[in-house]
């Protein structure tokens, strides 16, 4: 019971802090003081107090977009085990539901962007779905590989399955999975080198262009959903990359939170040292990630 409560608390409260840590890391690299760690929370509170402006051309789809997206990601957050603990909801085959909850979230973000009738947002939607076509197989193949190794289709079992012993025995395929999942993590969360979450109104951006027309609480919901998505995909990455257990339940939660913060620092470092890729190079890297995970599967299958 306490584990379920802690799971929900972490899933609800931690995500904006991750964004704060990333911003702070980037500021440190640039030699600036940077916004405080809790700035994303203030931003969210500020947005929630504001009023919304809805264009007269939009319909209910536009208003439903952010809410459905957040709801789908919240359910996904309940399905994924954080650290070494089983998730509150888990059943056989929930990995498929998990992957398609992201699909649903993306569909509603894209359809809300198309609903505004702006060609600029349509372009963003087209890019988003094109690139997600390439990241989805990677995530799926990675999950299938783990399912095959753990002989279970349940996210809670297959993600808590990796242990240091398995890393020693099948190090090559685990390493391939970790690299592929890190690329997925960056691409799905619209981080550099795929997309720049801090630019607005630029022709090269992907995700940010789709949410230009949202304002006030709706935009706050979108921001919060994006942060939550970072936590969910980060949890998958950490479960595979850092399969340690302290033996103590509270110790494991602490390890998870610290690992999540370290992962945010890592993302901040990647964003600081890399430039955004040219648009034509992005599919190449994403296909590369798919091939890495397929290769890991091949090594596990033989």
């Amino acid at each position, binding site marked *: 019971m306490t584990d379920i409560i802690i799971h929900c608390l972490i899933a609800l409260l931690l995500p904006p802090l991750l964004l704060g840590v990333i911003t702070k890391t980037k500021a440190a690299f640039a030699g600036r003081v940077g916004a405080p760690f809790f700035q994303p929370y203030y931003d969210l509170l500020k947005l929630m107090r504001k009023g919304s402006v809805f264009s007269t051309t939009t319909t209910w789809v536009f208003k439903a977009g952010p809410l459905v997206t957040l709801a789908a990601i919240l359910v996904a957050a309940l399905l994924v085990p954080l650290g070494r603990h089983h998730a509150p909801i888990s059943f056989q085959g929930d990995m498929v539901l998990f992957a398609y909850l992201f699909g649903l979230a993306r569909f509603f973000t894209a359809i809300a962007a198309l609903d505004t009738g702006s060609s600029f947002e349509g372009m963003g939607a087209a890019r988003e779905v094109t690139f997600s076509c390439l990241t989805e197989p990677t995530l799926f193949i990675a999950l299938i590989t783990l399912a095959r190794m753990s002989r279970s289709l349940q996210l809670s079992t297959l993600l808590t399955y990796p242990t240091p012993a398995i890393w020693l025995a099948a190090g*090559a395929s685990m390493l391939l999975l970790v690299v592929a999942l890190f690329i997925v993590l960056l691409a799905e969360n619209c981080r550099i080198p795929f997309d720049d979450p801090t630019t607005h109104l630029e022709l090269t951006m992907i995700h940010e262009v789709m949410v230009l027309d949202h304002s006030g609480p709706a935009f706050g919901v979108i921001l919060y959903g994006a942060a939550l998505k970072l936590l969910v995909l980060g949890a998958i990455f950490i479960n595979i990359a850092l399969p340690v257990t302290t033996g103590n339940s509270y110790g494991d939660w602490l390890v998870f939170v610290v690992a999540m913060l370290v992962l945010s620092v890592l993302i901040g470092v990647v964003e600081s040292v890399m430039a955004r890729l040219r648009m034509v190079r992005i599919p190449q890297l994403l296909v590369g990630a798919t091939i890495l995970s397929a290769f890991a599967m091949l090594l596990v299958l033989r």
Partner: protein
Amino acid sequence: MNSFADQLLVLVMLINLVMLGSSRLLFSIRAVAVQGAILGILPGLIHPFSGHLAAITVGIILIKGVLIPYLISDAVRKAHIRREVEPFIGYVPTLFLGAIFTALAFVFAEKLPLAPEHKELLFVPASIATLLAGFLILTTRKKAISQVIGYLVLENGIFIFGLLLTEAMPFMVEAGALLDLLVGIFVMGIVINQISQEFSSIDTSRLRALKEE
């Protein structure tokens, strides 16, 4: 020790894919150098230590990892070759083909009647995958210099296969193969220089038609 050799072979296969997907010439040359150096370490892992083994390891690392890449990049510099590799088919399709070939190599290696002690190892699939990747680089790139790189990858594939036989393969044969390779690269370097002086382009697709001056 064999599991470590397997990890290195996975790395070798990854380098194949990296080379198929990369667009930079110098990057490919460096990748093939790293691949050669990894292959140099491998014999030391699967055979008991001896003076002859140490000599072969040092020789392979020096020639495949340092000397040959140096000769190729020298040719690139002298012939003023542009840094893109200019493939006939795009990078993503080649990468896909490479991945399919790697998968097929695994399937094919399963079917081969191998000695039981070699069944569990990655040597045979890695060797076939590297061979096919070499063929792919040889056939899909326009520049003569990338074809040299393809040829090197091809040779690396053959070398991995040879590792299974090193018990029976005397030092002289191995040294002879390395020497042949070295001379081959040397000659190709000169030929590429000549081509670039004569034709101001080393695009092999333009060298098909013969014409009188």
